[in-house]
């Protein structure tokens, strides 16, 4: 245990001791004392250093991210309702819970998080699962509250979120373990059957004492029976279900082939004549199980990553109770409670403002890009963001009754009404199964009347050689390889059906705010001399308004003097004294009223942008405009999609003027865009369009979620709301629209590979069936030929190029 300080000289004098990023000049420490880029890093360092964990700084790989604690109290983590939902009591009095942690990157995070028990008394165990950013914590509630642990993790830069999918997780874990167990057992037994089979085959050519042959055949029977009885019983279950629902299912011929092969083999073993099919039967079970498991895994990984993003709905609300304010979980919020919502926070419920005034960002709910001014008496909705100042809200509707809650229910309903995409392989499977069964019966009947001795052998050979392995295994494999490759490119796809649907051009609906545009208020134009900039920055540093954020974002390196007497007027602007000059920044009306000047250059803000005037000492010095800029790559991406034959439509809740200008920039005709559409309107529009053919909806907010759920395929872009992620079939986790293009191209390639696989396996099966019907192959040769086709297709899928990094 190292306790000497300093633990390690920073690599260079100007990098942060904790995170390794450059240290601002003002924060540099003399000599070799630790320097930090921010207060968060300094606090984290102090905790780690005082806890005697300096070894952290010598780990080979550390995260280079400044620590930004949220500073929340996490009091809701101690609420009984929270414990009932997310924590478990153990028999020994300890409690256990799981939490998602933000900012988990690498091995050093594992090291640090798992040492929490050394630093927080009362914590007995902390384990981190890196793949899913999930921390398992066991602690003694008598010694320390959960909120203290949460605050501690937050201070280290790992902001905790409650893990809401506990039950799903347990069920999945059991499923996964069961599947692995079945695969392992089937694989081990099949491998041994195979080895015995090799001995038998070599005896076939080299001659073998009948005693040994008998012995080996009995051993094969002994090894194969458990494969069918346990791992293989899933196929028999599937076949029985197929009978019950009267739909031909891929499991039906598989089950018939398995049963027929095994029974015939067993009879031959007992009688001591004729072929046994045990090697083929056992191997078939093993390969099919592996194929199913792989596909399930790939789809689940995509679903998981999307559900990781929990930060968008608040988990806590601050309720005003007389004089006191207490934090409770959002789930426990009831109508007629008064809640406090600070600037920058998300409203936890629908309500009316009873005190204060502010500006609200409705983008998530309605798609409106401009902040909306609210004051006492105004209605506000859960899920929207309070931008400017703290307000008190009287709750009218909470939880599922809130507008966003109802939208989420719409989403579930929309998903239920969605037309199911029938996979190519599933479509073929029914016909394939029927054809195989008819042919097998025909073969048996024909040979029964001509050469009864070989009738059953020929029918079994047909069932084995036409085993739908290639159909059943290679299509899922092509899909799961594609899903895996796509995930590495930041495209998370939840199902193979989405891939198939995206491979053919259809109608593509795009949301505007946050999808085609950046989704944030940015400085669009600036018309004024450079010396005004420091004055503006000095003033706007004191404001949390989106315009202020926009200025600071646009000019990060402008050095500004100090500002005094700063006053803010909601819905107007900011004024103050900078370097001895009177500066006013705000809306034209506000600035004109403050200075008496209205002689600004009459430059109309373009395309529905919001104008902002700057006055210095009573005269207009500069005119800026703010808007939500188009994503840089959007025009090119959409142009490429258009050339591929996609019909593009723009659907937005934003003002018509703004949508018109965006549509014009993208070259969309008037018929292809609609503005001021409510979430319900979007859903109606998609329903109408879906009647004519497949519809793809790309969006980001809750306002798109219902439409996305109803569309044939819903695609969520980065930064979207939880609701939209939940219903999306595809989530583009890289910012921007470029992944959309890759997604479409990758889907086309994947479908081409699936078609190639299906065509190959059909051709192979037709040839095999012809040979078997003609009586040219016996079941033994069929059992050797069968895996050859599967292997070819498996290799072809594995090496396929679907989602590749764009050069």
């Amino acid at each position, binding site marked *: 245990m190292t306790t000497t300080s300093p633990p390690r000289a920073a690599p260079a004098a100007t990098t942060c001791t904790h995170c390794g990023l450059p240290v601002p000049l003002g924060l540099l420490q003399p000599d070799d004392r630790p320097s930090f880029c921010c207060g968060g890093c300094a606090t984290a360092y102090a905790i780690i250093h005082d806890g005697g964990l300096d070894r952290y700084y010598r*780990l080979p790989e550390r995260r280079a991210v400044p620590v930004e604690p949220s500073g929340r109290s996490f009091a809701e983590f101690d609420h009984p309702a929270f414990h009932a939902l997310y924590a478990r009591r153990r028999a020994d009095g300890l409690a256990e819970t799981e939490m998602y942690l933000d900012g988990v990157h690498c091995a050093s995070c594992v090291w640090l998080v798992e040492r929490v*028990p050394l630093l927080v008394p009362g914590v007995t165990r902390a384990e981190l699962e890196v793949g899913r950013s999930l921390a398992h914590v066991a602690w003694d509630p008598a010694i320390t509250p959960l909120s203290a642990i949460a605050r501690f993790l937050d201070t280290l830069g790992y902001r905790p979120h409650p893990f809401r999918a506990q039950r799903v997780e347990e069920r999945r874990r059991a499923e*996964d*373990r069961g599947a692995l167990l079945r695969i392992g057992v089937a694989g081990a*037994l099949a491998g041994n059957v195979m080895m015995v089979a090799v001995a038998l085959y070599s005896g076939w050519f080299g001659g073998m004492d009948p005693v040994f042959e008998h012995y080996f055949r009995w051993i094969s029977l*002994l*090894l194969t029976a458990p494969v069918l009885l346990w791992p293989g019983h899933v196929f028999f279950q599937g076949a029985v279900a197929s009978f019950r629902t009267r739909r031909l299912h891929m499991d039906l011929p598989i089950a018939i082939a398995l049963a027929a092969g095994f029974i015939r083999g067993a009879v031959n073993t007992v009688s001591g004549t004729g072929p046994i099919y045990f090697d083929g039967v056992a191997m078939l079970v093993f390969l099919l199980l592996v194929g199913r498991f792989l596909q399930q895994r790939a789809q689940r990984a995509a679903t998981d990553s999307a559900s990781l993003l929990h930060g968008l709905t608040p988990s806590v609300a601050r309720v005003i109770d007389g004089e006191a304010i207490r934090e409770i979980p959002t789930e426990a919020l009831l109508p007629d409670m008064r809640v406090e919502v600070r600037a920058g926070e998300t409203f936890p419920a629908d309500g009316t403002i009873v005190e204060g005034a502010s500006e609200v960002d409705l983008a998530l709910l309605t798609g409106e890009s401009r902040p909306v001014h609210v004051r006492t008496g105004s209605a506000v909705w859960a899920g929207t963001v309070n931008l400017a100042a703290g307000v008190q809200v009287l709750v009218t509707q909470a939880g599922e009754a809130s507008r966003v809650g109802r939208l989420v229910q719409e989403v579930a309903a929309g998903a239920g009404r969605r037309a199911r995409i029938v996979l190519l392989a599933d479509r073929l499977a029914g016909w394939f199964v029927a054809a195989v069964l008819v042919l097998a019966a025909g073969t048996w009947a024909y040979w029964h009347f001509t050469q009864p001795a070989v009738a059953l052998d020929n029918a079994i050979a047909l069932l084995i050689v036409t085993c739908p392995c290639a159909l059943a295994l290679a299509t899922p494999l092509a899909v799961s390889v594609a899903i895996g490759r796509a995930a590495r490119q930041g495209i998370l796809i939840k199902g193979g059906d989405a891939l198939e649907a995206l491979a053919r051009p259809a109608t593509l609906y795009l949301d505007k705010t946050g999808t085609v545009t950046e989704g944030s208020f940015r400085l669009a134009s600036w018309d004024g001399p450079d010396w005004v900039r420091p004055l503006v920055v000095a003033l706007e540093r004191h404001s949390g308004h989106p315009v202020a954020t926009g200025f600071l974002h646009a000019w990060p390196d402008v050095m500004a003097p100090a500002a005094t007497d700063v006053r803010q007027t909601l819905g107007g602007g900011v004024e103050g004294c900078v370097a001895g000059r009177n500066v006013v920044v705000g809306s034209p009306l506000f600035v004109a009223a403050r200075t008496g000047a209205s002689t600004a250059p009459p430059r109309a803000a373009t395309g529905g942008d919001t104008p902002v005037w700057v006055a210095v000492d009573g005269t207009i010095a500069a005119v800026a405009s703010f808007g939500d800029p188009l994503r840089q790559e959007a025009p090119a991406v959409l142009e490429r999609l258009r050339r591929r034959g996609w019909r593009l439509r723009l659907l937005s809740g934003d003002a018509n003027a703004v949508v018109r200008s965006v549509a014009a920039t993208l070259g969309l005709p008037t018929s292809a865009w609609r503005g001021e559409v409510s979430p319900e309107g979007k859903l109606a529009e998609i329903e109408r369009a879906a009647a004519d053919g497949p519809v793809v909806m790309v969006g980001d907010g809750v306002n798109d979620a219902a439409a996305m759920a109803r569309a044939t395929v819903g695609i969520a872009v980065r930064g979207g709301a939880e609701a939209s992620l939940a219903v999306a079939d595809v989530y583009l986790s890289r910012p921007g629209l470029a992944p959309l293009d890759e997604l479409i191209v990758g889907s086309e390639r994947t479908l081409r590979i699936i078609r190639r696989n299906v065509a190959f396996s059909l051709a192979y099966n037709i040839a095999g069936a012809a040979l078997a019907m003609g009586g040219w192959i016996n079941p033994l040769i069929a059992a050797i030929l069968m895996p050859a086709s599967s292997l070819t297709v498996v290799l072809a899928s594995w090496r396929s190029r679907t989602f590749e990094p764009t050069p």
Partner: protein
Amino acid sequence: MSVIFVVLPIALVLLAGAIGAYAWAARHGQFDDLTTPAMRALHDDDTPPPPAGIPPIQP
């Protein structure tokens, strides 16, 4: 070659043992998370024991 009558059953018993071990591992969640333990192994060597007064870690 009659040694095969002895060796093969022995091999099958070993197979049963291996399957049993695998079943235990799969049932006890040894395959649940395949990334983190690899990272943990890199720096688990000289961790100080937990301070006194704290209940021991339970699996």
